[in-house]
């Protein structure tokens, strides 16, 4: 069918509801969660063998020879992206085993979660826009349902509706763009599009590229299209917030990078300045609005918008170093924001309140969680011993190598602004507790603590010893043959 990792993941996804319902009622959530964790681990093992294959033989093309098939192209970039999808997915699944209450609906939660991850794996594996769009919708539909999973809460339902309307309109816009590309080139594979458009500057190509950028930009929350993000990311269950912020928005960035550096190479020069301005707006709007928030998860959601701005900086630069920075930032952001949302979820789970002012002194009662939370927040600012520093440094370096130094200064200034709210969160949490409520709070349960600590260890590890990660990212970016200005 598709490649081995994706096959394993899809089969496990299809079997997971049966396992959940067959399990004894008392342990449904735990058993379905363990099953999903096994699914993700098995996919990881299959991915490793695929990695060895790709690193020796180069990109693998899969053209279907069975009833269910698609046109797939697996290169180093796909492997790089899938490794973090599976890593953060596994962390969120283990965390969910404690976090999601045991009920008749809990098996559906894991099925949707696996569906979302298989959709994303399919997106990064696909070799043409047809396959990509099918997996894109697979991912989108499951995220709409997951945001509304706690359906007894009005925030979740309302946020899901808003996300669904904007997301589905975005997908339809992308579909219109894809149809125009199909009309222009007669094919939808990335290689075919690149060959068809090598020298054309047909006005229809500009129109199609606008539709593609807007359509996929909705999911990536680029600034004029970001309005759904703070609602959806803050109202979803915390595990889903971690996955949405960590990897789903990055998938949008991936598709834009794939489209603009593999297919639209002839009109790239006109687009890069526009992307530079949008990335500037995105990071400043995200960070400045985050300063005004009082709700912890909303603050983190706005900070995700700012991080999307950082990732766009590398795309706007458009060199080898710039894109290495973008994908490093994507990888590191998944670890940092994943850890931050999971910690915030743990604090809200124990405390039952979401406002920052109710959390004064919670660090005295949940020391491990708050230490990990502080590590992830300091990494999000981009402070040296953590991994966020490495990727932001790469991005700033890449802007100075081209004539976009203003964007690099913007990134540094924006990080300084972001320190304003990240440090406020840390300060609030380590003060002496004032309310009775805090006194009763206990440390996070063990099953929720393990994935959080594991993510924090990775944040520190990749901060101190970034070489393997940076090499992996540089190798991944060679997937784009048309990059100018190699470092």
């Amino acid at each position, binding site marked *: 069918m598709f490649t081995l990792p994706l096959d394993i993941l899809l089969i496990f996804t299809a079997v997971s509801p049966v396992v959940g319902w067959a399990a004894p009622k008392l342990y449904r959530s735990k058993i379905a969660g363990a099953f999903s964790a096994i699914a993700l681990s098995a996919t990881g093992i299959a991915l490793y063998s695929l990695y060895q294959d790709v690193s020796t033989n180069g990109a693998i093309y899969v053209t279907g020879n069975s009833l269910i098939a698609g046109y797939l192209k697996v290169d180093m970039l796909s492997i790089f992206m899938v490794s973090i999808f599976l890593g953060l997915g596994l962390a969120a699944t283990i965390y969910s085993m404690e976090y999601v209450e045991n009920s008749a609906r809990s098996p559906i939660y894991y099925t949707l979660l696996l569906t979302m991850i298989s959709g994303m794996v399919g997106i990064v594996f696909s070799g043409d826009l047809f396959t990509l769009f099918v997996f894109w919708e697979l991912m989108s539909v499951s995220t709409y349902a997951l945001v509304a999973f706690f359906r007894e809460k*009005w925030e979740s339902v309302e946020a899901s509706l808003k996300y669904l309307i904007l997301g589905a309109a975005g997908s339809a816009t992308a579909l219109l763009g894809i149809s125009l590309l199909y009309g222009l080139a007669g094919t939808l594979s990335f290689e075919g599009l690149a060959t068809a458009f090598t020298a054309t500057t047909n006005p229809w190509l500009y129109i199609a590229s606008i539709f593609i950028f807007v359509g996929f930009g909705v999911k990536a929350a680029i600034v004029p299209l970001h309005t759904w993000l703070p609602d959806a990311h803050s109202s979803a269950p915390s595990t889903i917030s971690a996955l949405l912020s960590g990897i789903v928005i990055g998938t949008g960035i991936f598709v834009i990078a794939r489209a603009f550096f593999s297919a639209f190479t002839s009109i790239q020069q006109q687009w890069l300045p526009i992307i530079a301005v949008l990335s500037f707006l995105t990071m400043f709007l995200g960070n400045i609005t985050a300063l005004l928030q009082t709700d912890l998860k909303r603050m983190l959601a706005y900070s995700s918008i700012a991080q999307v701005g950082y990732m766009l900086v590398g795309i706007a630069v458009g060199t080898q170093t710039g894109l290495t920075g973008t994908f490093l930032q994507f990888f590191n952001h998944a670890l940092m924001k994943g850890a931050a949302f999971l910690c915030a979820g743990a604090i809200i789970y124990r405390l039952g309140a979401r406002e920052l002012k109710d959390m004064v002194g919670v660090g005295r009662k949940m020391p491990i969680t708050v230490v990990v939370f502080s590590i992830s927040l300091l990494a999000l600012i981009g402070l040296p011993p953590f991994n966020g520093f490495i990727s932001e440094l790469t991005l700033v370096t890449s802007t100075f190598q081209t004539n976009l130094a203003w964007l690099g200064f913007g990134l540094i200034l924006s990080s300084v602004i972001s320190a304003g709210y990240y440090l406020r969160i840390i300060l609030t949490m380590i003060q002496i507790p004032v309310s009775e409520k805090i006194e009763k709070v206990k440390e996070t349960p063990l099953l929720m603590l393990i994935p959080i600590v594991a993510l924090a260890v990775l944040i520190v590890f990749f901060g101190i010893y970034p070489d393997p990660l940076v090499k992996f990212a540089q190798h991944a970016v060679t997937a784009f043959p048309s990059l100018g200005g190699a470092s």
Partner: protein
Amino acid sequence: MIDLTGYLVFSFGLFSIGLYCLATKRNMLRLVLGIELLINAANINFIALAAFAMPGFVDPLGNAFVCISIGLAAAVTAVALGVVVLAYRHYGTLDVTELRRLRG
């Protein structure tokens, strides 16, 4: 026989009507219909471009894509209607302006 331009104008017109519907209507069900219009505009574009790809020949890729796209649109609509039902149970109305309780 209508030429390709006619179909393209029609599909862009349909797309604009869909966007207008999403921007101005307040009923949630009408918003779901607006999304359907957007997807169908894109589908018509595909069919028209597939038919005019080569004289006397219809490209199967475009038609295959449309078949799958209709299925995907049905899945999106199903989830959308599910969320609309949940929203109706919470608020007792289908008016979207009633549910702006979330901060902007």
